[in-house]
């Protein structure tokens, strides 16, 4: 059964209860923050902050504040999982993508591969951390900690197809149902107020086409293994050919 969480910016008041609840549930320490001109704090995801609320001032006739919750998108075809050499980065049948710290070697291949810049490397432990979609809570029948904490229902959680159907029938525009390179995501964004603006860089700036950051790497590896195999075969054939020629000329 696949689940999904939804962030509805129309309802977000920027209280950051989700940010705090996430820290508490995942037992991440507080971080020293500094003054940030746009109130976003910390200014980006960190190994200890699996989610942040981004504050953005936009001018649209009048000055307006918009909020964007950032966390792992829990991609359908997660590039971080295919890049991970150890199997530490795991996708569950619920659609959650999480790191098993005991398997992570801190190689940061996932950091390289993630088109949303989500996994963060922690110098201290030498491992990578990120949002788990609260898989430990979901399996226990609970809501994700951030969803549970939200006082305004800006965060919604449920079975993926049911959630999508409900939002659509209510007239919401949805981001994340289908996306190039990652298939789609299990974190969705839905709006009525900001239709057409979820992917607008002046507003929320979510990527219309998440970059396939692994680039040619998988093809290069296949090329290497394949052609080296062919070279071994060719060498064996040549060895036989060479010896046959030698017999011939005797």
């Amino acid at each position, binding site marked *: 059964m696949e689940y999904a969480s939804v962030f509805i910016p129309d309802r977000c008041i920027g209280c950051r209860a989700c940010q705090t609840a996430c820290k508490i549930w995942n037992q991440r320490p507080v971080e020293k923050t500094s003054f940030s001109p746009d109130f976003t704090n910390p200014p980006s995801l960190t190994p200890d902050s699996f989610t942040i609320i981004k504050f953005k001032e936009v001018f649209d006739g009048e000055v307006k504040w918009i909020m964007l919750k950032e966390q792992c998108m829990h991609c359908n075809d997660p590039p971080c999982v295919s890049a991970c050499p150890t199997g530490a980065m795991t996708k569950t049948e619920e659609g959650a993508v999480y790191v098993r710290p*005991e398997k992570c070697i801190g190689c940061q291949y996932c950091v390289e591969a993630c088109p949303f810049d989500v996994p963060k490397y922690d110098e201290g432990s030498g491992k990578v951390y990120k949002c788990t979609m609260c898989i430990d809570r979901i399996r226990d029948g609970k809501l994700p900690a951030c969803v549970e904490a939200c006082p305004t229902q800006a965060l919604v959680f449920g079975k993926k197809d049911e959630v999508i159907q409900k939002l659509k029938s209510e007239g919401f525009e949805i981001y994340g149902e289908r996306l190039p390179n990652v298939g789609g995501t299990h974190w969705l964004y839905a709006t009525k107020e900001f239709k057409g603006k979820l992917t607008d860089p002046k507003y929320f700036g979510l990527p219309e086409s998440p970059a396939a950051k692994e680039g*040619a*790497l998988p093809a290069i590896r296949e090329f290497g293994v394949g052609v080296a195999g062919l070279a071994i075969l060719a060498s064996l054939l040549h060895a036989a050919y060479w010896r046959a020629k030698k017999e011939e000329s005797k």
Partner: protein
Amino acid sequence: MSRVRVFSEVQIWAHKHLIHVVGLLLFTGLPFFSKDLFGWVAYVLGYPVALFIGGNVNSLGLEVARWLHRLAAIVLIAISAVVFFAEVPRAKKWRIWPKNVGREVRKLLDYYVHKKRVPFDKYNIGQIAWTWFVIIGIAVMIVTGLIMWFKPSMELVTVAHELHALGAALFMIGLVIHIYAAIGIPEHRPMVTAMFRTGDLPEEYLKEHHPLYYEVVRSERK
């Protein structure tokens, strides 16, 4: 029978240690390159460590592989520096500048495909291409490897990673051919002895396989 010196002590030393160190770099890089074919390397390296400290065998193995890869990388850089300082001052004597590429390629095919007797210089065009590949390839592997190691920026790392993997792929392919040409063809045995042990070749061998170079050697003797 008199013998002709073709490889210096430094070249013999560098070749031997390049084998060790590039072998180790490939061995420790390959479990990252292809889990399916070389995943076992992680188990081989991880199992003994897991006996002592416990933990996930596969992850431990990959962690050991990473550290060995970095250690080997430092040794590779050291060997490269020695070769650089030993070889650059005598660059005039190198015989690895390609000339008449079309004709040389045809000669190479005549030799390997038609098994004809062909007059080569000190190195045939295949050997020249391989030598340049190794020089440039090792430089690229060192630069891209250092970028992946110290991660100045993730954008650079992504590009370096692709180049590093491409370099490793080409090394794998090239080494298969190089090793085959050296030890798979019995007639080349004297060259293997020269490269690994003595540094010199019987005059007869040179006359037979590299007559153009033999002429050079003779004229230098006069």
